């Protein structure tokens, strides 16, 4: 009989990942992100709301590490984040790549506790479209 000394992973240092699922074909066909982008994060148990909409409200506190990634709904389509427009006194996201790849993610740290909501905009590169396209509605970080 094995003595079980199972030790659960602590989640204190886990970054909050915000993932945009993008219907690339839908965006290209309608020339809009409206109804074609679904946002989720990993802080549901912490109080985030608005899952599956473009008005995701991610519950954060000062010092939280944030990570933005994308998933293309069509598995062979290209989708990437072009930029994140947010109040720089709250967070300054920067683009990085997974080591040894050209796959990008954006990351930043929440600089202060938020009173209320801080909306932001994400712009995406989709398929072969030259110009980035910005979310029609604003997701937000909330305190």
């Amino acid at each position, binding site marked *: 009989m094995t003595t079980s000394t199972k030790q659960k992973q602590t989640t204190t240092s886990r970054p909050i990942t915000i993932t945009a699922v993008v219907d690339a074909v839908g965006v290209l066909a309608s020339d809009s992100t409206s109804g074609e982008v679904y946002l989720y994060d990993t802080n549901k148990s912490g109080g985030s709301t608005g899952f599956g909409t473009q008005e995701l409200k991610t519950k954060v506190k000062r010092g939280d590490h944030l990570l933005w990634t994308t998933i293309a*709904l069509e598995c062979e389509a290209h989708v990437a984040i072009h930029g994140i427009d947010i109040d720089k006194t709250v967070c300054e996201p920067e683009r990085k790549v*997974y080591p040894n790849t050209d*796959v990008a993610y954006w990351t930043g740290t929440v600089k202060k506790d938020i009173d209320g909501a801080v909306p932001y905009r994400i712009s995406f590169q989709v398929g072969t479209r030259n110009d980035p396209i910005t979310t029609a509605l604003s997701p937000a970080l909330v305190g």
Partner: protein
Amino acid sequence: MPQQLGIIVLVDTANALAERTLSGNTYWFDNAKLYGSRNQGTENLVTAIHGSYWRDGSQAAEQVLNWLPYSLGSLPPSVPRGYVAERSQCSDEEVLTELESIANGSSAPEAAELERLRKALGKRANAHGRGSRGQKVLDVTGHVVTEVGSEAHSYPPPTITDVFGQAVDEKVIYPAEYGSPDLVTGGWYWAASVDTSRPGTYTYEMRIQLHDLVQRDGEILWEPVNFTCRSSLKITTEPKRNAFTKAGMGYLPIPSLPSQPSTAPAAPAAPAATTEPTASQH
């Protein structure tokens, strides 16, 4: 050529493992929204499948479904398959190179330097029940995890282990696991062909295996945890359409033309055949 439909099952892996349920922790998508799929991005997706019929009522090719399970809050599916193995090997090589330079140096290595190398090496986690050494644990940014238990890690993608339920029992879908030879995005995946001749709404269930990182008796393990979730298909008898030309219900996307008018210029005459010079002409 059957129509291919992708169904993404996005799992909030950390939350599902913490709550020990997929309920409230899965988000489903397909690429048939324009065909009438409902509840995209929720756990109540109803996938619309148009019966592939020709205009005369005869059945065209069947529909094919492909399920793609992804993990929210882990390495994204756009990094190449085998990425964890590749990163494991890379970190080994980097540390070996540094060790070599230390070994060739004249002075004894400092403890702090060795500690830094130990951290750069990361930790490996074994698959439960297998004797072999596993791959390294990576964090969600693709770097090796040094201290399992205090550092956040990326989970392996969810694994579908079975598709069953009403739609399978009633022989509406025929699911099976297939292997793709694609080196970058390939691997094992579940697909099914659909009998589109029987309209109706059918549920199906899916067994999904997640892996929890645990430490037991000094060993780091990916412990499998099995879950079940449910989705549904709605099969209708819409005739087959050409989505590219939107040409309607015809057999082919070529509009019918009136018979050729008599005033139309005659087709140019075929050029006269050139005759090969023969010996008699000389």
